[in-house]
Structure formats: structure tokens, C-alpha cells
């Protein structure tokens, strides 16, 4: 009974997210037509134009077909990871992205680990010591983190730790794992600051609510050890709202990565996007956007899965809409 309702729940969620992905892909494809100028001009970019080239482009991209047909053709390609060719470099979008995604994933994970490692304990401590100096300090730092965008904290870190103190390299991705870790530490810290602030805020709010509950006092009254009260009875119940914000956090990481790569001159997909945007390289922008959407949707599905473990009472239709 339970297994079945879980399966139904997951299938329904998966279908809904798939529909969403298709919807987004439609919008992404539409970008080509939203750009100023006609599609051929957009696809030619700054290349010289001649009637022959225009005819060739029209044929190659099926530009005489109806919008829907073009979209379906594009979607078919996209589903085979064929996202077209970069106008600027002539490379396929897929190869461009795959050559650069490693760095961004590394940076993002690095930052995420720092943010969770600092943010969750920070939020828990702030909630436990609510309204004390420790709480105010942690809340103050997280308030600063929310107010300071990643590119600004990047600039400050760059100035203080790389230029002024000279402890870290100023720019570039480095080569080899230790060197890469070394080079990416400052960017990851800059990125992690805002993410950490968000996690602190969420964790603190969830924990403050949970710690006020009678079942926490009741656990203490029974003599349950403090660490177990905080983790097993407290954090366990606060996990829901924190995990729910996973999609939001991924969004912050992605956005932050785009900006931070710019500050530290890192060749990840963020800087690929910015180059593409400034050169009106629409296929690359489309590729990036589709990738970001797929990531976010995948993350949301993962969150749904997590929820099943967090709240054993959830069955299809109850608790999750």
C-alpha cells in the first residue's frame, strides 16, 4: 500500500517536472525569435552575409518550416544532446559546454560543501543560543552574506587575500587537483558566503521553531542527552524546510558561479554564458539555459525523493502537493 502510493507520487512528480522541462525548452527555443533581427541574422551573427549564405542557413536550420516544426526538430536534436553550433567558434554547443562544465561543477560543489559545513552548524548554534551574543554574531554575519553579492565578496577576497596578503593566486583555474583546489579556494569562498548565509537563515528559522516545541522539552525532561536532543529530535524535524530550499540554493550557486567566474577570470560555463551573451551567440545561450533548467528540475526531483526519507508519514497526496 505504502510502496504503491510512493510510486504513484514519484511518477506524478516526475511527469509534472518533465512537462515543465518541455515547457521551458519551448521558451528557450523561442529565444532565437525574441532576439532582435530575423533568425538568419541572429544565426549569422557578425559573419558576412550573402544571398547564398542566407539560403544555406535557411536550409540548414529549416527556417522555412513552421515555428512548431522547427521547434520539434530542435527538440529532437536537443534530446540527443545536439544543441547546434556556436556562431562565434564554430564548435558544437555540447562540446563547448562539456569542456567547461567540469570547472563550474568543481567550483559549485566546493562552495556548497563549505556553505553547508559552516551554515548548518551555524544555524543550529544560533537557534540554540537564541538571543545571545553568539546568535547575534551569527545572524549578523549571515545578514551580511545575504547583502553581499558573490562578485563583491569576490573582489574583497581578491584584494585582501590575494593582492594584499598574497596568500592565494589572483586568477586562473590552475592545473592538477591540488593546484586547482588552491586556485579555486578564493572563488569558492566568495560563492559560499552568500549560500552559507541563506543556509544559516533557513536552518536557524527552522530550528528556532522546532526547539520551541514541547517534544524537545519532553525529550530533555526524560534525560535524553543534549546532542541527541539537538540532532535526533531537533535537526531531524527541522530538515524539511531546509531541504525544501535545495532548489533555491542551487539557483544561488549557479548565479553566483556566473559572477564569480567573471571576477576571477575562470573559464567555466558561467563565463561561457557571458561571452555568448555579449557576442549574441544564441545557440550557446540556449544550451546553457536548457542545462540550467534541467539541473534545477533534477534537483527538485531529488528533493522530493529526500522528502520521502525525511518524513516517513508522507504518502502520495498528503503533505506534498
Amino acid at each position, binding site marked *: 500500500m505504502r510502496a504503491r502510493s510512493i510510486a504513484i507520487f514519484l511518477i506524478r512528480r516526475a511527469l509534472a517536472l518533465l512537462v515543465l522541462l518541455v515547457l521551458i525548452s519551448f521558451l528557450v527555443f523561442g529565444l532565437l525569435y525574441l532576439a532582435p533581427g530575423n533568425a538568419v541574422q541572429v544565426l549569422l551573427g557578425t559573419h558576412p552575409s550573402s544571398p547564398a549564405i542566407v539560403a544555406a542557413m535557411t536550409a540548414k536550420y529549416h527556417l522555412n518550416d513552421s515555428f512548431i516544426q522547427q521547434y520539434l526538430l530542435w527538440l529532437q536534436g536537443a534530446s540527443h544532446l545536439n544543441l547546434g553550433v556556436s556562431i562565434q567558434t564554430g564548435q558544437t554547443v555540447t562540446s563547448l559546454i562539456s569542456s567547461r562544465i567540469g570547472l563550474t561543477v568543481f567550483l559549485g560543489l566546493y562552495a556548497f560543501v563549505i556553505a553547508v559545513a559552516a551554515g548548518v552548524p551555524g544555524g543550529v548554534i544560533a537557534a540554540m543560543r*537564541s*538571543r545571545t551574543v553568539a546568535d547575534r554574531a551569527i545572524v549578523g554575519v549571515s545578514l551580511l552574506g545575504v547583502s553581499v553579492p558573490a562578485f563583491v565578496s569576490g573582489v574583497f577576497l581578491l584584494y585582501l587575500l590575494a593582492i594584499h596578503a598574497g596568500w592565494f593566486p589572483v586568477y586562473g583555474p590552475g592545473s592538477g587537483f591540488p593546484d586547482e583546489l588552491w586556485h579555486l579556494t578564493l572563488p569558492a569562498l566568495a560563492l559560499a558566503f552568500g549560500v552559507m548565509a541563506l543556509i544559516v537563515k533557513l536552518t536557524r528559522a527552522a530550528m528556532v521553531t522546532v526547539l520551541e516545541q514541547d517534544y524537545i522539552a519532553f525529550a530533555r525532561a526524560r534525560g535524553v542527552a543534549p546532542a541527541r536532543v539537538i540532532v535526533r529530535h531537533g535537526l531531524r524535524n527541522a530538515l524539511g524546510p531546509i531541504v525544501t530550499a535545495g532548489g533555491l540554493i542551487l539557483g544561488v550557486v549557479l548565479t553566483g558561479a556566473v559572477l564569480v567566474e567573471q571576477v576571477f577570470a575562470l573559464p567555466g560555463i558561467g563565463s561561457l554564458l557571458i561571452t555568448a551573451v555579449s557576442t549574441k551567440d544564441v545557440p550557446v545561450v540556449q544550451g546553457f539555459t536548457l542545462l540550467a533548467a534541467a539541473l534545477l528540475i533534477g534537483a527538485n526531483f531529488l528533493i522530493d525523493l529526500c522528502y520521502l526519507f*525525511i518524513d516517513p*508519514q508522507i504518502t502520495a497526496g498528503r503533505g506534498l502537493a
Partner: protein
Amino acid sequence: MSGGLTAGPAGEPAAGGDPLLQVRGLRIASRIQGVQRVITVGSDFSLAPGETLGIVGESGSGKSMTARALIGLLPAGVRAEGEVIYRGRNVLALPEHELRQLRGAELAMVFQDPFTMLNPLMRCGAQIVELIRDENGRPLRRAARRAEAVRRLAEVGITDAAVADAYPAELSGGMRQRVGIAASIARDPQVLIADEPSTALDVTTQREILARLREVQQGRGMGLILITHDLRVAFALCDRVLVLYAGSVLETAGAAPMEAEPLHPYTLGLLLSDPPVDRRLSQMAAIPGSVPAPGDVAGTCTFAARCEWRADACTAAAPPLTQVAAGRWSACLRVAEIGPQMQAARAGAQAARDGDAGRAASPAAAGTAGAVVTVRDLEKVFGSSHRAGRRVPALKGVSLQIGADEAVGLVGESGSGKTTLGRCLAGLERPTAGTVLVNGRDATQQAGLSRAERRRLRRTVQMVFQDPYSTLNPARTIGATLAEAIAAADEQGRDIRAAVGELLERVGLPARYAERKPVALSGGERQRVAIARALAVRPRLIVCDEPVSALDVSVQAQILNLLTEVRRELAVSYLFITHDLAVVRQVAERVYVLREGLVVEEGQTGAVLDRPQHWYTRMLVDSIPSSDEAWLARAAEAESERLGSGDGDDADDSRARIAR
């Protein structure tokens, strides 16, 4: 000031040798953001092994904080001074890690609200055996854990082993409270502190829980401290009772002597303002005013401002708790001189009985023609109309009638549909089927009515709600709230300002209250304003949904008296919704008993309560706490009667009941 100056009951040798727990000069104060607030001013008491001590107090008396101080669980910002001696050690002075050894193992506590007391993400069995270790101090293995949990559940009367695997949300309140008790006594503590363990439960479940507590306590020879606001409950369960008011102990005595002859005016007042269930009083003895903040009455007798026997000496200094007879302690300076007067007041109140005859309903007058409201076959189903599984029927075909100038009681437990019925009358809920005739007009069919007519129809029925803290808009002044109501009744040329003043005076509040915002008012005062707001539009019927159940006992009587008075002057009808039979006896001529969406019994209030016909009504009547020794003993009997009554699905239907 300090209770330590006098030989309080702390010095009194407890029956049966050394006390198990000895409290001396317990002062509790909070300091939050630099603001200091006194919670208790120094209590002394003791608990003997195997003894049950009741700590009785209204809101703000400091009873819950006292309970928490005893096991060192005060919230952040609250500090306790004095001594709580357990086995030669002062609990208040122990470091946290030593305190933790005591908690659960020696001193345990059960909380008020079974719906929030258990961890929602942990199975009940796991919470019960969470701290049980084998003889080598190791956690139990899986099979042993479950066996142990089932055994512990059986001790609190749960024989269904499946409960051990259930999550709290799958259980009813009564079941959860029993799981809570099982969890708190899992490590065989010497003292159990129960903080209002039955207050959040229905009256019928309340007795079961109290009976379980008594059983467990006697079976183990534990000391039990019962914190409650209800003197009746304390007298039913406790050997000794301590009365706490605004942070100071006013009286302690054995339960029986105290019930027979209270030796403090406050205790007397509490007893008198508790409405009797066996007769109707023309006027209830209310204590004027409301409970003060402990800090505001420090250095005086805390009750002086509300006491009819107040003398100058009462406010000169805080009177110490002194022994007045064997086993009897009172903090009243004048107890010796006013003793006879207090006894006379008690006797007078007990003799006072204007009888239900005084204002008997005339069912003849309540024919359909003269009726303010006639309800026929009312049904209400909550939930989506698409999914059958989620449809929750609240009313399954209820018919009732309320005549002009008649007060009708509607009695039932949670889930009976009583509130839904009231809300349907007030137009706050749309019935699924059936008719509601207001003034002979069908209020459910408003299609043909003009907007003004619709509004007039709406105003015919007004409502007074349970919770005084959310019944008034916190953003508006009392005056603005009342003025809006007066203006809504669209009587041209009425001087609204004057009308607001009149209304306030009618409900016993000074006219200057119009300038105030709700936060500046006490619960009782807010409920008065809510009554004034209902009266402002000159309704024919006021639906009172548990209007006094959130109020302190000493204030309840004031509001009940006010309602009676208002009806005498204004000829308005009431539908009085309550779970409390004693209250309904005081206000209603006729009563309907509702159970699971159906009327199971109706009739003259006196007749129904004195000679209940339906088993359910009998059980409700029997659930009223009584100090009669047999009362608790009958709990098991009542349970089996309910089970045998055909629809006795309760004991295990509690499992299926999903928290709403």
C-alpha cells in the same frame, strides 16, 4: 518577602517520614532583554513518597514554571533561586550534566498538550524505550526494544501492540497522552510531575488519563505532583493541595479538609466561582477583577485587591504562609476573624438555588412561528467533493429550534460538530444539506434577497468566539471596532461615540476603554468587548462558542453573569456551545447533546442533566470530576460501557484518527 523567614510547610514533617522532595523559598524570575519579571515570590512545599500533591493556580500563577523549576527545565532567560532538595541534593544548584542524570531517572514530567509532546517523526515505541538500557548499560536490541515498548504500553492500558509502531499523528489525544506517560516513567522515576495532563483532552478522556496516572502512581509508590487550574480535578486525585496565586502560595491543606472548609478568601472564591452541575444559580459568585502580574503585587497580599475582606494590614507587607491548624497553612492575615464570614458565604452559596424553575423554557412558545432560528436536517460535510476518502462529515442531520428570548445549550466533545452547527447559524459555514430558517426566512437560499436584506439577515445572528486573544482586531482600538459594528447596523443619526460608551458600560467596562487597543485588555475584558460588538447590531440570537473556556475560573463567572444579565435586559436568544455541563446548567433552559454530528438527547437542562437517558449523556455527566473516591474507579467501567454501546469504536478508532 522571603518564605524562608517563616517556618513554612517545608518544616512540616511529611506523612510517612522524610519528604521525597523538599522545596524551600523557590523564587522564579525571568529576565528577557533587560526586563525583569517576577514569576513566583518564594514557595515552600514538600512531597512525601507515594503522595499526590496538587498545585492549583490560574494563568500567571507561576504553576507551570514551578513545575519546570523542579526538574531544572526552565526556558532561557528564566532563573530560579532557593532550594529544591531531592535526596540531599539541591536540584537548582546542580550542573547540567548531573541534572540530566536525575531527569527521567528520578524526576520525570508529563506535559500538557499530547498533540505536541511527542516527536512527530519518531515511532511511539521508540520514544518510550529511547533511554532504556539493559543491565550492562547498553541499548536494547531491536526485538527487545519492541517487546519492552509493548510491555510499557500495557502498563498505561494500551493493549494494541501496533501502537508501538505508530507515529504520534496516527493516534488520538488520549492515546498520545498515555504514550507520553509511558515514556516519562520508562526509567522508573521516584517523582512524576504532571503539568495539566488532562486539560487538552475531552472530558471523557480526561478521567481515563487521571485514572491511569493514579493507577501508575499507586502501583509504583511514586510521588506525583499534579499541576492544574481545576480545583475539581485536584480534589479528585490529590492527597494534598497547594493553591498558588500570582506567584505566591496562599493555602495548603489536605484535599478533603480544603474542600470542606477553605481557609483563604481566594480558595473560597475559586470554589464559589466554579459553577455547580447539580443546580442553577440565579447569580454566580464571581471574584471581581482579574489576575494581576506577580511583580505588580509584590510586597502585599497578592489577592488583596480582589478580596472583600481586605484590611490595611493586607497591603502593608506580604503575609507569610502560617500554620492555622494541623496540616493546614494559610497566607491570610485575617483568617481567624473572617473564618465565620467565609463559612457563611459558602453556606449561602450552597443554599442559593433559584432552581431551573425560575426561568423554565416554554416549549409551547417555541413553535416554528415564534422561533428565531429553526434548523432542519442540517448536514455539513468538509473536504473536497471529488475525493470520497477525504470527506469528513461534521453534521449528519441535525434539527433544532431556538425560541425568542430563549437560551439553548449545545453540549458535546471535540468532533461532535457543535462548533460547525453554530457557524452554520452565523452564516460562516455553508451547510451541505438541510435548512436554516432565521426569523422564518431560509438563510441558505439568499438568491432572491437584496444586498441590504442579506446583510440584515446576517446581522440577526451574531457570534462570540472562544479565544479572547484573537477575537478583536489587534490593529484597531476598541472604540473603532464597536463604532464599525454600530455603523453596520445602519441606523441613521445615531451618535456613534455616545453609543460606543453606552455599549461599553452595558458590558461593565468604563467608556474610556474605547481609546485602548486589545493588547491593553485582559482576557475577560476582551470577551466583554466581543459581547458588546455582538450586541451593537441588535441581534436576535447570539451564538456563544465556548465563550468562557479560555478564561480563568475566577473570571468565567463574571462573563456568565454578564450574559445572563444582558439577556434579562435585552431579550436576546443564545445558542450556548460548550463542553462543560456545569456551565450549560447556569445559562441554558434547554439543552441539546451532540455526538458525532447527531443529536443524541435534548430537553430541559435540569431534566437532561439530572436524569440523562442516553448512555452518552450519562457518561458526560459522570465525567465531571468529583472528589468522591469512586469517581476515578468508575473510569474503567465507563470505558467498557462505551465499548459495549454498539458504536464503541473509540478505543481503537483512536488509531485511525488522523490529527486534524
